[in-house]
C-alpha cells in the first residue's frame, strides 16, 4: 500500500498544484515542494520500520516475499495483468533519488517559470509519479504503462516551457522514446506469449516471467527489443542524439529531471529486466553492449568539447557518463553493478547541479552561449565556486561520489576484460578536457563585454541551500558510500545468482 500511496500523493499533488494556481501564482511551486517533501517523509517513515531493510536482508529476484515490499492486486484478470508493485534495494535507492532530485528540480525552477505555473508544477509532479511507477512496477504491462506515462508530462514541459527550439526538441524526444517503447511492447507481448506456450497461462508478472524457457534465437530478439528501448532512454551511442536537443531546450527543472532521473530509468531497465529476463542472450550480447558503452564514453566526451552551448556541453557529458553505466551493467559482476548504481546516484546530483547552474546563468544572462560568457567568477564568486565543485566532481575526483562509481565500474570491467577497462579509463582523460573547458569558458578568463555590463546577482540562500545539500551528498557518497552499497547489495546478490543459474542451465 505504501507504494500505491506514494503514487497517489504525487498524482493528487499535481492536481492540487494545478488548482491553486488560481489562488496565487506563487502557490503551485510551494505546493509542489511540499508534496515532494511529504512523499519523501512518508517513504522514509514507512521504510524505517522495515525489518528486512534494517537487517539488510538479501532478496531473491524470483521470490517477491523476500523483497522489502510487495503489493499485488488483479487488474485485467483475463490477460493475467495485475497492479503489481514491489521494492528491493535498487528500486528503493532510485525512488529516494527521484524524490530528492524532484525537490531540487522545483527549487531550480523557483523563479524562472512565469507562464501557467500550476500546469508546470503539475506536469513535474506527474513526471515524478510516472518515474516512481517505472521503478516500482513489476507487472510488465503496468511497467510499460508507466514508461509511457512519464513521457507525456515531460513532453509538455519541453514543448511549452522550453527554449527557442522547443518544438523540434520535444518532438524528437517523444519520437525516439515512443518508437523504442514500441519495440519493448512487442517484446513484452512476445515474451508473455512464449511463456503461455510453456505454462498455459497468461501472466505479465516479472516474477513469473523470470523463469521463462525459450530457444536462443527468440531470447536474443526479445532481449534486443528491451535493450534498444532502454538504451535509447539511457541514452547509449548511437541512440543518444535526442538528448542534447531535449536537454538544451528543456526548462531548468526539466533538464534536472531528465538528466537526474529519467535517464536512470534506462539503466534501471537494463539491470531489472533486460539482463535477468534473458541472461544467456545478454551474456552473448555483452561485448557489443560494452563496446557501445565505451564508444559512448569517448564520443560524448569529445563531442562535449566543441559545444558552445553550456547546457549542450553538459548534455554530452551525460552521454559520456551514461556510457560508464552501460559498460558497467554488462560487465555484470558485483563491483561493476555497484559502480553503475553509484554512478546513477552521483551523476544525478552532479549533473542536476550543473543544469541548475546553467539555468541560473540563462536567467541572468539570457543566453546559454559560452562565447558570451567568461570571467563570471568575478561577479558571482559563490556560483563560480559551486560550479567548480561540481565540475571537479564530474571529472571524477576521488573523495566524491562520481569517483567511487567510476572506479568500481572500471575495476569490475577489468576483471572481465582488461582492454575494455583501459579503453573506458580513457574517459577519465577526455572527461577532464571538456570539464575544465566548461569552467574556462564560463567562469574564468577575460570578462565578456556583454556580460560585464549586466548587474549579475550571485547565488542567494535558496540556491546555496540546494547546492550545499547536493555537495554534502556527493562528499558523503565519496567518502562513506557503504550505506548505499549495502542497500543495493541486498538486491544485487540474488540478481547475480539467478542469472548465473540461467547461464549454466
Amino acid at each position: 500500500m505504501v507504494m500505491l500511496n506514494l503514487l497517489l500523493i504525487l498524482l493528487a499533488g499535481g492536481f492540487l498544484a494545478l488548482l491553486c494556481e488560481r489562488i496565487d501564482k506563487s502557490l503551485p511551486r510551494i505546493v509542489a515542494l511540499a508534496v515532494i517533501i511529504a512523499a519523501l517523509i512518508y517513504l522514509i517513515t514507512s521504510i524505517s520500520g522495515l525489518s528486512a531493510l534494517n537487517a539488510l536482508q538479501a532478496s531473491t529476484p524470483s521470490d517477491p516475499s523476500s523483497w522489502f515490499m510487495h503489493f499485488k492486486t488483479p487488474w485485467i484478470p483475463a490477460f493475467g495483468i495485475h497492479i503489481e508493485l514491489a521494492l528491493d534495494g535498487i528500486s528503493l535507492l532510485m525512488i529516494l533519488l527521484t524524490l530528492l532530485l524532484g525537490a531540487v528540480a522545483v527549487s531550480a525552477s523557483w523563479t524562472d517559470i512565469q507562464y501557467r505555473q500550476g500546469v508546470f508544477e503539475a506536469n513535474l509532479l506527474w513526471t515524478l509519479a510516472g518515474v516512481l511507477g517505472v521503478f516500482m512496477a513489476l507487472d510488465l504491462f503496468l511497467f510499460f504503462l508507466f514508461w509511457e506515462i512519464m513521457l507525456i508530462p515531460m513532453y509538455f514541459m519541453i514543448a511549452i516551457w522550453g527554449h527557442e527550439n522547443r518544438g523540434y526538441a520535444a518532438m524528437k524526444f517523444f519520437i525516439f522514446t515512443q518508437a523504442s517503447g514500441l519495440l519493448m511492447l512487442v517484446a513484452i507481448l512476445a515474451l508473455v506469449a512464449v511463456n503461455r506456450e510453456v505454462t498455459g497461462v497468461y501472466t505479465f508478472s516479472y516474477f513469473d516471467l523470470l523463469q521463462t524457457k525459450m530457444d536462443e534465437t527468440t531470447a536474443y530478439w526479445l532481449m534486443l527489443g528491451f535493450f534498444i528501448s532502454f538504451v535509447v532512454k539511457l541514452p547509449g551511442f548511437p541512440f543518444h542524439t535526442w538528448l542534447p536537443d531535449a536537454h538544451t531546450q528543456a526548462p531548468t527543472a526539466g533538464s534536472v529531471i531528465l538528466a537526474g532521473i529519467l535517464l536512470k530509468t534506462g539503466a534501471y531497465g537494463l539491470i531489472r529486466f533486460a539482463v535477468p529476463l534473458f541472461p544467456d542472450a545478454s551474456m552473448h550480447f555483452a561485448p557489443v553492449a560494452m563496446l557501445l558503452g565505451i564508444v559512448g564514453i569517448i564520443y560524448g566526451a569529445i563531442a562535449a568539447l566543441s559545444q558552445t552551448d553550456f547546457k549542450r556541453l553538459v548534455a554530452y557529458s551525460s552521454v559520456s557518463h551514461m556510457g560508464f553505466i552501460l559498460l558497467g551493467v554488462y560487465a555484470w559482476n558485483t563491483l561493476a553493478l555497484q559502480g553503475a548504481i553509484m554512478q546513477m546516484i552521483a551523476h544525478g546530483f552532479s549533473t542536476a547541479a550543473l543544469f541548475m547552474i546553467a539555468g541560473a546563468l540563462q536567467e541572468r544572462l539570457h543566453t546559454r552561449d559560452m562565447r558570451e560568457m567568461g570571467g563570471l567568477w568575478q561577479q558571482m564568486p559563490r556560483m563560480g565556486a559551486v560550479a567548480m565543485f561540481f565540475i571537479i566532481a564530474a571529472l571524477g575526483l576521488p573523495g566524491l561520489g562520481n569517483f567511487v562509481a567510476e572506479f568500481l565500474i572500471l575495476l569490475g570491467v577489468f576483471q572481465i576484460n582488461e582492454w575494455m577497462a583501459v579503453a573506458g579509463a580513457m574517459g577519465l582523460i577526455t572527461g577532464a578536457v571538456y570539464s575544465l573547458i566548461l569552467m574556462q569558458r564560463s567562469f574564468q578568463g577575460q570578462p565578456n563585454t556583454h556580460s560585464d555590463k549586466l548587474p549579475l546577482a550571485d547565488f542567494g540562500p535558496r540556491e546555496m541551500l540546494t547546492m550545499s545539500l547536493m555537495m554534502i551528498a556527493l562528499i558523503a557518497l565519496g567518502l562513506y558510500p557503504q550505506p548505499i552499497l549495502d542497500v543495493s547489495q541486498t538486491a544485487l546478490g540474488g540478481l547475480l545468482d539467478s542469472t548465473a543459474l540461467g547461464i549454466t542451465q
Partner: protein
Amino acid sequence: MRDFVWFIPLLPLASSVLLMIASSRLTRRSVALLGVGSVGLAAVLTGAVALEFLSDSTPVEVTLWTWMKIDSLAPRISFYIDGLTLVMMCVITGVGFLIHLFSSEFMQDDDSYARYFAYLNMFIAAMLILVLADNLLLLYLGWEGVGVCSYLLVGFWYRDSANGRAARKAFIVTRIGDTAMLIGLLLLLTELGTLNIRTLMQVASEQWSIGDSLPTIACLLLLGGAIGKSAQFPLHTWLPDAMAGPTPVSALIHAATMVTAGVYLIARTHDLFLLSPSAMHTVAFIGIATSLMAAGTALVQSDIKRILAYSTISQIGYMFLALGVGAWTAGVFHLMTHAFFKALLFLGSGAIIHCLHHEHNIFKMGGLRTRMPITFWSFLIGSAALAALPMTAGFFSKDLILLQAYQRPDFGPWLWGAGLLGALITAIYSFRLVFIVFFGDAKTEPDREIGWQMALPLTVLCALSIIGGYFSLPLADVFPLVNAEHPPHWVEIISISVPLLGVFLAYIGFYGQRPRIDSWTKTPLVQRVGQFLRSGWRLDEVFDRIAVKPYYNLANALQNEPIDRFYEAIVRLNQAIHRHLSATQSGRMRWYITSMMVGLIATLGVAMKIAPGAI
C-alpha cells in the same frame, strides 16, 4: 600522540573549508592567521610525532574507517607512518609553513586573499594524505587532490586566459599519467587482491618472481603516474607553463612537494620495482635523460621562473636516476635537500618579482646584489646547493646519487658520466642566473623592501640548504641496504670538482661584459640551437601536432552531431513517402477506379498463386 596523526591533515583541511565558507566575513589578518597558523600547528604536531619517533621507531597504523567494502575489496581510510612518511611530512609541513608565511606578505595586495589560502591549505591537506595513506587508493585520493589544487593555484589569476590554459595543461597532462596509474591499481587489485601497500608488497614478492611480465607492467603503469606528476620526459611539458601561478605556489607545489610525489610513489613501492629490473632501468634512463634535457633547456631560458622550473625537472631526474639504480635513500635524501634549496630559490625569485614590478626577465634585472642583500645571499646559497658545491646540502645528496650510480654493474659508469655532465650544466645555469641577476648594472630598481614574513622563510631555508646535508634520515628500516663499497678515489674527486668547473665557466661566460662570448652566441648555428633548446626541444609543438590539434579537429567534426544525419535521412524518407502517398489522393474518380481495379486483380492473382484451390 601518533594515534592522533589524522589531526595533522585535518587542521589545514578544516582551515581551508572555513576559509571558503567564511571568506567574505574574515579580515585579511584573520585569514592569514588561519591559513598560516593551521599549517604552522600541523608542522608543530609533525615535529612532536618526529621526536616521539626518535625514541621509538616502530611504524604506526591508524585506521579511521573502511572507505567501502564490497566482497574482498575493502580499502580503508587509514594512515601509516614510518621513517619515509615522516621525512615527507616534515618537508610538507615545515617547508609548507615557511611558504605560507612568505605568502602572507607576497599576496597581501591580492583581492582573493582568502581564496588563495583556502587552496593552499587544501593542498597541504591533500599532500599529507598522499604520504600518510596506507593503501594505494587513498594515496590516489591525495594524488588527485594535489592535482586539483595545483590546477586551482596555477590558474589562480583566472582573468588571464593564458593562466587558465596553463592550469588546464598541467591538470590534463598529469591526468594522462594518473590514468595509467589508476589502471595499474586495477591490475594490482585484480591480480593480488589488495591495495594495502605493505600487504601488496608482501604478496607481490611471494606471488611474482623477478623478471615476470606482470610486475613489469604494473611498475610501468605506476611509473606513468609518477612521470606525469613529477614532470619527467615525456610528460614534463606542463611544469614550465605551470609557472603562471603565484610564485610561492611554484615553490610549494612545483618544487618542494607535489612534483616529488612520483619519487615518493616509487620509493614507497620499491619492493614491486625490485621485481622488475627492466622497470628499474626505465626509471633510471628516464631520469637521466630528463635531467640532461631539462638542464640544457634551463641554460638558455630568460624567464627566471622557467629557469627554475626546468631546473626542478632536471633535479627530479636525478631522483629518478637514484631510484632506478636502487639508491632509495639517496633519492629521498635528494628529495629533501632539493625541497630546501629549490623552495629557497623560488621564494628568492618571488622576492625579486615582488619588488621589481612583476618582472620575470633576467636580462632586465642586474646589480641586485647590493639592492636586495637578503635575497642575494639566499640565491647564492640556493644556487650553490643546486650546483652541489662542496659543504652545501645539495652536494651531499647529489654526490651520493652519482657514486651509487657509478657502482651499478653494467652501465653504471655511463650513468655516472651522464650525471656528471648534468651536474656541470646545472652549475653553469645556476650561476649564470646569479651573475646576470645580481651582478653588473642595475636595469630595474626595486620599489620596495621585503618584510619579515618574507625574510624569515628565506633565512631559515638558507640555513637548511646548508645544514640539511648533515641530517640523517630514519630510512634504515624502510629500504633494503645497498652495498657500501667505496668507488675509487678519482671518481669522488671528479664528482666534486665538476660543479666547481661549472661555476668557473659561468663566471667566464656571464660575469660582467664579455664581448667575445656575445659575438659567439650571435652566430646562426648557436642561435638556432638556442632557439631549439629554448622551446623545450619543440616538444610542445610535437604534442600539439600529434595530439591536441587532431583531438580538437575531431571534436569540431562532432560538434553538429554527425549521427543525426542518419536520423534525418529517415525523416526525409518518411516525408518522401508521405509526398508520394498524398499525391495519390488526387480527387479524380477515374484514377481511383483504375487503382482499385489494379489492386483487385493483383490481389486475386496473388491469391490464386498461393492457394489455387480457394477460389
